[in-house]
Each structure stands twice: as C-alpha cells, then as structure tokens.
C-alpha cells in the first residue's frame, strides 16, 4: 500500500504492508531510531511520537493510518539545537538510562504547547503514559515545571 507522510519536515513516499505499524516503519524503513520498542502494546510509552502535534503510541498506530499526516520525533524537536525543555532535562539530571527519554521529551513538549503553565498534577497526568524505571520521575517533573512560562521559559 502506498504511504505518503512527513517525518520531521521531510516528505516520504513508501510502499508498506497493511499490518505494518508506524513504529516499525519509522525504525526500519525511515531509519528514525529514537522511538523505542518497549512493550508493543501501548503500555510503556517508549515509542511515543507526535502525530500532527498530538502524542500517540506509534506501536499501536497502523502505518497506513498516518497517510498524509505529519510525524515529529525527538530528532525533529532538537534539530536546530536543544529545545529549552531538553536543556532543562539535561540540567536537572532528569534521565538515567535514557531509553524512555525520547518519548518523555515529546509528551512534555506537547503538554507545554497546550498548557504553558502546568501544575505538578498536570505534569504527572501528561507523563502518566510514559514509564521510567530509573529516576522515580521526580527530576523529570521538576524539569518540566521549570519549563513553564512563569518559571522563566
């Protein structure tokens, strides 16, 4: 099946199988490796990407569903240099192993787009679909809160 999509601003035209999921197409056909394979059932959030600006689990999205749509991965977020939020993650020692980091950066980026001054509860809610086993979330939440407009974004 024919699939036309835009990934981080670059247009792609691919021939895919009906059963192919977006995650595999990004990783194996387009060579974008930041969305990770963690559970393949939407539980862990490691495969999170932005679909027209909205976070989705790319392991649960059929590739053909995104025909004509725009995908953003963390490579797209930080292409012009680290975003303010990425820099805050670095400053706050927000990640350890880093496997969940691409997904969390995207979920948090989406949050701040829609809600420039989130509360701690808002941040917890926005990140509740992204599992992290290393950090205990505390430094991640701190970094996102520091990215709020009133915190000097």
């Amino acid at each position, binding site marked *: 099946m024919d699939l036309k999509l835009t990934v981080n601003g670059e247009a792609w035209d691919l021939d895919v199988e009906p059963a192919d999921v977006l995650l595999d197409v990004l990783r194996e056909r387009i060579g974008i490796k930041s969305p990770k*394979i963690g559970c*393949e059932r939407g*539980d862990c959030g490691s495969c999170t990407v932005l679909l027209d600006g909205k976070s989705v689990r790319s392991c649960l999205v059929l590739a053909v569903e995104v025909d004509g749509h725009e995908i953003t991965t963390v*490579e797209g977020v930080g292409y012009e240099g680290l975003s303010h939020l990425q820099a805050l993650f670095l400053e706050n020692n927000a990640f350890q*192993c*880093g*496997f969940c*980091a691409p997904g969390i950066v995207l979920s948090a980026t989406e949050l701040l787009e829609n809600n420039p001054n989130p509360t701690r509860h808002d941040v917890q809610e926005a990140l509740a679909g992204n599992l*992290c086993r290393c950090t205990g*979330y505390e430094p991640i939440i701190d970094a996102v809160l520091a990215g709020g407009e009133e915190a000097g974004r």
Partner: protein
Amino acid sequence: MTTTYPFESDKSGDDFTTVGTSATRIDGLDKISGAAQFVDDIDFGPGLLHAVIVESPHAYARIVSIDTTAAENAPGVVRVVTGEDFPFKFGMYMEDRYIFAQDHVRFVGEQVVGVIARSHRQAIQAAKLVEVEYEILEPLFDPKKAIEDDATLIHPELDDYTHVPWFFPKENTNIAHWRKIRKGDTEKAFAEADYVLEDTYKVPRYAHCAIEPHVTVSRLDQAGRLTVWTASQSPYTQRNLFAEALAPLGLSHKDVRVITPYVGGGFGGKAGVSMEILGAAMATVVKGRPVKVRWTREQEFYNTYQRQGVVADLKVGVMQDGTITAVEHKLCWDAGAYVEYGANVVNAAGLSATGPYRVPNITNDSLCIYTNLPPGGPYRGFGYSEFHFGLESHMDRIADAIGMDRVEFRRKNAIVEGDELAYGAHMNPSGLIEAIDKTAAAIDWGVDEESDDPNTVIGKGMSLFWKAPAMPPNASSASFLKFNEDGSMNITVSGMELGQGYLTVMAQIAGEILTVPVNKIRVETPDTDRNPYEWQTVASHVTWSCGLAVEKAAIEARAKIFEVIHQVYGYEDDSLYLEDEKVKCTTDPAFEKSLSEFVVDGIQTEEGTWRGGPIVASGKFMPEFTNALSDPETGQGGHPNVHYTVGATGVIVEIDKQTGKVNVRKAALAVDAGRALNPDLVRGQITGGLVQGLATVLYEDMRFDENGKLLNPTFTDYKIPTAFDIPDEIVPIIVEVPQPDGPFGARGVGEHTMIGAAPAIANAVYDALGVRIKSMPLTQEKIAMAVIEESKT
C-alpha cells in the same frame, strides 16, 4: 581491629575542582537528543536474520519428541535448532543451565526450539508449526515443600555440577547451596535473653522491568570470529561464558567479541547471561549472517531472571536495656529452575542476614532451593531487599515489646567501625548513626501527626539498611587512558553506563588528578576487543573498583607527564604539579607548560631532538584483601565482603482506613556514599531506588497459576509506578564518612537505595493502623482486609 587496605586513595582535601561537583553527565546530550544508540538501534543490513524461541508450556516435563519439519519448510525459514545442536551447559557460579532444553524442561517459558528466519514475522509464524510432545512431571513451587525428604529432584545430577568453591550443594536434595553462619552460642543467648521474638515473613518474586527489553545480535563470520552486540551489564562475563560454553565448537576467548552500547536499564536483570547465549549459539549455524533475538515484554518477565522469593524464619533475642544478644535467621529461597547466578544472591544474604547491627551470637541459614519457577537471579539489592523486610519489621516489634523507642533501639544496636561481623571480619568506617539521626529528623520522628481527613490516618516508619558488594574475591577492574593532541582525553573501561552516571564519574576521577575538565574527557562504553577488563557492572562496586583503576591510570599518566618535563627541563618530579591543564613547578613559579603542547607530540629540546610522545596509561584494581574461603559449617575464617554501605529510610504515610490506599507524603533516605563524587548522581540513585523499592511493597505483585505459569507478564497487569505513583516529597540525604580504600573515599550506593523502602512502609502501616502485615506486597486490598480482621479481634 580494622582492615589494612593495600591502596589508600587521596581523600584529604576539600579543595577538589571536579570530584564532588555535580558535573553534567557526559552521556546526557546523547540521551536527550535521541542520538543514544541501543543495541536494537544498530543497523545490520538486509542479511539480518531474526530468531524466535519455542518455549515450554509446562513447569516440569520430559521432552518425548520434537518435530520441526513443518517449521523448517515454512516461508523464510533458514534454520531450526534444538537442544541436540548445542548439548552444552553454562552458568556463572554454578553450571546448571542449558542453552536449549535437553531432555527436560523445568519452568514455563524454558527455551526448547529456536526458529531462524529472514523476517521476524516469518519466524513467529514458523515457530507455531513446531510440535513438541511432553511427558508432564509433578512440579514443585513451594521452596519449603521442595526440601521435604520425599520431594522430587529437579536436578538429579546436582552433585556433578561444576560450581565455585564457596558453594555447598546437598547431594540428592533440591538444595543447590546452603550458606551457614555459626557465631557464638545462639541457644544459650536465647535462654538468657529477657525477650525473644520469633516469626515468619514472606517476600514474593519481582521483575526488574527495565524499559529496554533484552536484545542481542550475534554474527559468526566466515573467518570464525563471533561478535555479539548485546544489552548487557557484563560484557566480559558474557564473553567468558560464551567462549567457555561454545569452546566445543572451536571458539576461544580471542575469537569472541562483545560490544555493548548504551543499555536501557539493568537493575541486575542484564547482569549475567540469560537469553544472550541463544543468539550466540544460533549464530554458529548460520555463518556470516547476523541473528537478532529480542525478547518480548512477556518474555522479559518470565525468561530472564526474576528476583527470588523468600520465606524468612526470624528469631531475635534482646536484653531489657535493648541490647540485641542473638539472631537466628533462616532464609528459604525460591531460587527457580536454574540457580547459576541466583545461588550467589542466597550466599550474600546468608553472610549478612543480621542487618546492620552488632550481634554477638548468630545462626544464619540461607538455603538456595530449586523450584519449577523461572530462574532467580540478581536484582538491585541482591538478597538484602528481601531479608530486610522481615528483619526491620521485627526490629520495630521488639522495640515496642520492650518499651523502647524504635529509632533509639536501632541506634543503640547499630553496627560501628571495628565491630565484628558474622563471619569474623570487622566493620568498615560508616556513617550509620548520622544517617539514622538525619533521616529521623527529616520525618519529624517522635512527633505525632493527625490527619485533617477523618477517613485517613497518618503513620511514620523507619528502617535501616546495609549491603556489601557480592563478588568473587578476584573480581577486577581495569582502565586505559590516552591523551589527544588538544589535551583532551579518551578513557576506556568496561563497566557499563546503565544510567547511574558511571562514565561521568570515571571522567571526574581522571579529570581531578590530571586537572582536565570533564567536558574534555570521553569515556566509551565497552567493546571487549578495545576496552580493558571489567568483571561486571553489578554489586554497586564500579564507582569504587573501576574508580580505583581509573585513579591509578591517571596517576600513572601524571608520572609520565612529569617524566617528560624532567627530561627536557631538568625539574625534579617531586617539584612538579598540575593545575588548570598545565604542568607547574614549586621551585620555579615562572614555569608552566600546557598539556596540549606536548602530551602527544612531545617537546623539542634545544638540540632540536624530541622527548616524550603520546601519553598513555593503564590502571587495574583487584581487592586483594578478600577471601571467600571459610568453614562450610560455620562460615568463619574468610573475608568475603570488601565493605558495607549503610543508611536509613524514613516515610510518612497517609492511609485511607476504608480502602487501604497508601499515599506516601514524604520519604527520606540517607546513604553513606563515603564521598559523593557527583552529588546530583547520588541523589538520582536515591530517588530512583527509593521509588523502585516502594513499588515492590505497594504495587508490584507477581502472580503464578497452579501450573507455574506467570499470569501477569505485562505492564497492564504488573503495575510499576507511573509519574502519579511517587511520594509527594522525597528528601535525599547524602552522608559522607570516607571509605579508606575508595577513590577519594567513595563507596557504591546504587542498590542500597531500594532496600529500606519495603520495611519502612510496613512499619508506617503498623504505626498508622496497628496492623502488622508480614508478607509483601502491602497492597491496598491486603491493608484494607487486615484492618477488617483487626477490628474483629
């Protein structure tokens, strides 16, 4: 009496420029930008093959026949392999495991057949066509039943298995190892004690749940070279086990290369060799083709290692003044179908099952018992998380019984430097008392708090912890260091960056000695062809052990730098020192020479010739003062542990009386890091470990059915914490009483932060509700039911 250490690190100054600072982690940019490459992210081209494993549906069975014909003829299939192709055993501490099942399967999920195909999808389809006939045998799941006299033997050949000299298997039983400690006269002490408390505590199995699943890609090339890319904490141990297990195929250590890029979390689950050997073996039958094996999340739960369950029978005697006089601790471990790694968890727990207390009379029995559940193995805490639950619950109960404050009771008995340990060696310097006091202060210990909500009650709980690295006495670390033309450095080591920040800390150690800033130092993840030896990244020992190897390499490099300056300018070595990446001289304040001017190209003399050349150095460390040999019946005579890291955990909880829901309002944890080489990274370990520990007591719960099948091998059903499930406030407390032989006084803290959470919660639940729950986890349901039961009495 204290231990004499062969090497004393510089721990004198407070004027360090790099060590002790929260330098930004050197792997941070890779990880935050998406650039970090994990094994599954590496491209292997169109020749890559994918393997899927056919697993046993039975907990204990004899394999009657295997028919792979249909699978072999399925589209895309390249090879199908079984145990007949690899009749080899392997194992870390005891060789009791098989690459593929031989004549028996011993747990649900054991690997029976491997199907190698051109695509992952084709391998999955073909695996469904494999037919295996089994004769089902009676499985054993309860460790106490497995040691009854008439129990079926899970490993009838146990007595023939090769194992390390400090294991004591019992022939014709399911006991793979029995660690005994006998010190003093426990019987007499109990008879003379004013108060004795005896009870049983139960801790179930747990899963590591690193977010990156196990994955390995292996290729045996046409020249006979086996390369394995693997998500591992222990590349050299893996190389050793691959080379040993596959030696019959003509491989030697030099032919095996293990490459480990970033690892997406380990927690012990990637410490040894579990599924990785499947890939290494299968690569040998498809020469030239890389073969990928990637575990699904389900396999991640049931076929790597699980944290072992334990039934702990504990008896403690005290005098009325609160002095502990005797501890008798019997730990019956549900070690699973294979104990090649897990038996050492049992050993470590047995050596230290008194907890961080001064106890004159000790009887410890730690039994490694085969069951027909998945193989047990290392998990952050390495046995200590498990036995501390009962031990620290018990300490609260004893304090209450003799009318002593729970914290004061612990303080009175807390082990201090020089106290004799269970096996006769002596305790290292520690800040345990300081940790107790600071933790108690952080949760306002002694101040009763009332909830504003009539439906909830507030309770406080404290627990202490200790842990020593469990490692062979000859476990070693090594490092190579080289300077570049611009004065920057590359360091190679073979510890793993698991997220703890190890690479950064190694850079800080070398940077401190050579006055080179961390951002000019690159430390690379392991490739066994290029990087020097490291035993494993486990036991919370790499900061200490590999840190010493890096420190020695840096000192050697410094000596070589001074030697060049001496040759050219004649200054005596002992008048030279480094500052801001320059060599300076105490006897000639006008002299300075930047490292970047000569560390590769050398220095030209007045005659026009050159001196020096590339500065390269190496360092190694082995804990030569340790010794694992001791009397099998008493455990006396050896020096099995290098040192202990200690600390305390305190929590304030608010519990809904009706629903049993626990909200952790505050959690404080103090750990004695010796010296925090990077305080932010230490705090990262405290926060992460604390939440992982809280998860084992509040949320996680591994459930097996009556046939030994794991019922909840997904994140939907095995609930690990989300961003919502954390304490309202976490207070990380760093204590620094230097370790005499640690790099700048440092000792490890990685695992320790997980140990105290479970008993602290159990004690807080009792404090709030007056119910004592003696089995983990303390789920909402269990607490609510206990409250109902209590109200009936």
